[in-house]
């Protein structure tokens, strides 16, 4: 907590009682603040907070003072630090109240704003409070709207409603199973036909809600809670084997919801209510007293659990996920130290602990790789000791070919990890570091704070659970590119090797590029490519001219608006493999001027002429449309240095900054009336749709 460490309060003018008793000190400070003497109260609040770091009274007093003198950023940090230290229900409710008070003029948020609307069964205000505090912890300002009691239909169905007036970025729909499907839940005498009729009616109602929100809030992401099975059945123990029993009925409803969403509303996210409730313990999901007194569907203990499930969705939506896991070896991937114990004595696989725990951990890592997370190794070892384990040990799950980057040496890990990030062309904020050694973790945490260094438990029994509990690997839709990504990074390593050989021999770069046999396919967006295009827009940081983020809904709307927008993409293939859809351009089409709103390329394919080809393609499209000028924009960020100077190098003319945003500079070039005047780099094979 910065507030505790940065200021050593002067206590010389405190009363004797206040010096020994922080509670008395607090009272004195509160009295001074009420009397309007903030200058005298501030050091007292700080001194009290240093002794009582989880005291809301101290935090609250200091917040009022910071707020009054406009120190919003420090106030926000203080509030986040307080919740992290004391994550109780009442702390979270207090923090939420403060965030709400700031809504009109919020403190700066690192990750921007996410407007959340909540609607569904019962009173969801506490859920909103937990969500906005969880979002604040992730650097997002999250103003929240909560529907009035049970007003979900009234808020979602009409084209205009208080919910839509709020202009949410995220709409969460949490309807209890018993509200929409009462007989399904508790009627043991209903016929199969009656249950089917209730199911159809309820699912149709959900379909109407989703259709209405897609119409009235087309750019919002909808999160729909699935329907959970209660902890008891009206059929008793027979439920498990009863066709049309309670569990069977509810699973049938969820299966229909999955069908509905995939067929008609592919951009709706489903929150797996059943799994989240089961994880917490179904008997603790609802506090029955609060339910009967105030229709609160979720207990105080369950709220943080469901809020963290939301945060997974939010992080995926905002592109805050991580792409690569960097792994230590000894006592992380296997038990023991290979350099001392030898290949026959390390613990991996088999029936006995801890070898079986390490095997399961490796399996979980391999499954992450299967959904596109890159694996890398960073270990202090002799490579000659390590490789035989990966190549020959019969019980290893992970093998040499599963790792896209490897550092096995005696250098410090921070240096090695920074190198891995450079080699893979990803940011440090895309990395997760797993190491059993607290000293190594401490070093990396201190040297590379952007890397997520996980507090791995001492006992390997809990490694897998810790890994699975991380909320940083999620995506809202898994694209073909995600599934292939780990493979692609290995191909990239092979390309680099070829490049090094080619340039070492003094060969020219063009000859190397030609030898790659690159095929670039350029085309307008299609419904199939929109999810990947949106994904790339939201996670590309380096070669990204403007770093403007758009949701999948917004990209879909642009791609349908062919008169106003051009949404183009580029997929790249070479002799080593398929890099997939890796380049995107969004063009705002004026009558004369086409303005390139966004232009970005995955770093995997940068520097091979693909960026030139995509730009050439835009120019030839502009020619066909009869435009006279092409304008490109550049907005510098902390990360997009590789994109700086791109339009300059293309020979475009600077035309000043954009009115209203001096951070954005523009370049222009006249569009040639003859499309044949445009030539693509000679080493590329171009295919155009």
């Amino acid at each position: 907590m910065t507030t505790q460490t940065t200021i050593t309060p002067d206590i010389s003018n405190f009363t004797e009682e206040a010096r020994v008793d922080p509670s008395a000190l607090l009272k004195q400070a509160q009295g001074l603040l009420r009397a309007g003497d903030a200058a005298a109260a501030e050091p007292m609040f700080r001194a009290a907070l240093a002794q009582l770091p989880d005291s809301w009274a101290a935090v609250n007093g200091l917040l009022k003072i910071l707020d009054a003198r406009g120190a919003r950023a420090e106030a926000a940090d203080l509030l986040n630090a307080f919740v992290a230290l004391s994550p109780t229900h009442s702390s979270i409710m207090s923090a939420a109240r403060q965030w709400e008070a700031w809504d009109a003029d919020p403190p700066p948020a690192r990750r921007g704003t996410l407007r959340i609307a909540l609607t569904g069964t019962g009173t969801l205000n506490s859920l909103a409070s937990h969500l906005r505090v969880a979002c604040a912890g992730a650097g997002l300002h999250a103003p929240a709207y909560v529907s009035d009691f049970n007003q979900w239909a009234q808020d979602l169905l009409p084209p205009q409603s208080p919910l839509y007036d709020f202009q949410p970025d995220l709409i969460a729909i949490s309807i209890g199973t018993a509200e929409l499907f009462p007989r399904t839940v508790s009627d043991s005498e209903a016929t199969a036909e009656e249950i089917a009729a209730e199911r159809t009616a309820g699912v149709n109602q959900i379909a109407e809600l989703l259709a209405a929100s897609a119409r009235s809030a087309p750019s919002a992401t909808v999160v729909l809670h699935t329907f959970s099975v209660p902890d008891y059945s009206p059929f008793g123990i027979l439920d498990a084997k009863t066709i049309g029993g309670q569990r069977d009925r509810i699973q049938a409803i969820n299966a229909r919801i999955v069908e509905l969403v995939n067929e008609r509303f592919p951009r709706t996210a489903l929150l797996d209510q059943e799994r989240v409730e089961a994880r917490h313990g179904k008997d603790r999901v609802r506090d029955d007293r609060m339910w009967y007194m105030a229709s609160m569907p979720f207990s105080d203990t369950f709220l943080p659990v469901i809020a963290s499930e939301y945060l997974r969705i939010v992080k995926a939506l905002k592109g805050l996920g991580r792409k690569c896991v960097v792994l230590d070896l000894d006592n992380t991937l296997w038990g023991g130290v290979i350099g001392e114990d030898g290949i026959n004595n390390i613990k991996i696989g088999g029936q006995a602990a801890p070898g079986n725990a390490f095997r399961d951990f490796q399996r979980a890592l391999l499954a992450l790789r299967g959904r596109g997370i890159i694996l890398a190794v960073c270990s202090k070892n002799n490579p000659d000791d390590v490789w035989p384990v990966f190549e020959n040990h019969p019980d290893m799950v992970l093998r040499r070919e599963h790792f896209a980057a490897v550092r096995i040496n005696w250098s410090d890990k921070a240096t090695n990890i920074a190198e891995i990030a450079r080699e893979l062309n990803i940011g440090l904020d895309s990395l997760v570091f797993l190491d059993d050694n607290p000293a190594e973790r401490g070093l990396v945490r201190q040297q590379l704070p952007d890397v997520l260094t996980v507090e791995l438990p001492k006992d390997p029994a809990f490694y897998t659970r810790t890994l699975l509990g991380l909320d940083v690997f999620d995506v809202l839709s898994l694209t073909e590119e995600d599934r292939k990504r780990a493979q692609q990074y290995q191909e990239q390593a092979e390309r680099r090797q070829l490049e090094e050989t080619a340039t070492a021999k003094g060969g020219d770069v063009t000859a190397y590029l030609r030898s790659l046999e690159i095929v670039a396919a350029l085309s307008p967006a299609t419904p199939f490519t929109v999810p990947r295009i949106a994904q790339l827009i939201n996670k590309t940081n380096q070669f990204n001219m403007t770093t403007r983020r758009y949701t999948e809904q917004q990209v879909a709307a642009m791609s349908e608006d062919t008169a106003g927008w051009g949404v183009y993409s580029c997929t790249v293939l070479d002799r080593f493999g398929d890099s997939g859809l890796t380049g995107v351009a969004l063009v705002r089409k004026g009558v004369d001027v086409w303005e390139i709103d966004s232009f970005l390329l995955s770093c995997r394919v940068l520097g091979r002429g693909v960026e030139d080809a995509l730009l050439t393609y835009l120019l030839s499209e502009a020619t066909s449309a009869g435009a006279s000028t092409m304008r490109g924009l550049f907005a510098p960020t902390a990360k997009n240095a590789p994109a700086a100077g791109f339009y300059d190098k293309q020979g475009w003319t600077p035309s000043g900054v954009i009115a209203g945003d001096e951070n954005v500079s523009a370049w222009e070039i006249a569009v040639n009336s003859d499309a044949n005047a445009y030539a693509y780099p000679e080493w590329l094979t171009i295919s155009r749709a």
Partner: protein
Amino acid sequence: MLTIDNETKLKDIVAETLGVDADEIEDTTTPATLPSWTSFNHLTLMSAVEEAFGLTLSMEEMTGVKSYADLAATVGRHLG
């Protein structure tokens, strides 16, 4: 009756939950005298009291609390 320590603790909880200073809370403080004591905050307050003192209140007890004095008496009964 609450001990002085528990009285302080309880007032701190009320203060935190209802967004006021502990000094402002009197036995006669009620939802009518304190605008932030809404029916929603009332239940948050009950949860916070349960959490802090490690006790479980019934629905009847929760709805029976109409003032700070009632709350102190209810907590006092549980602590014995």
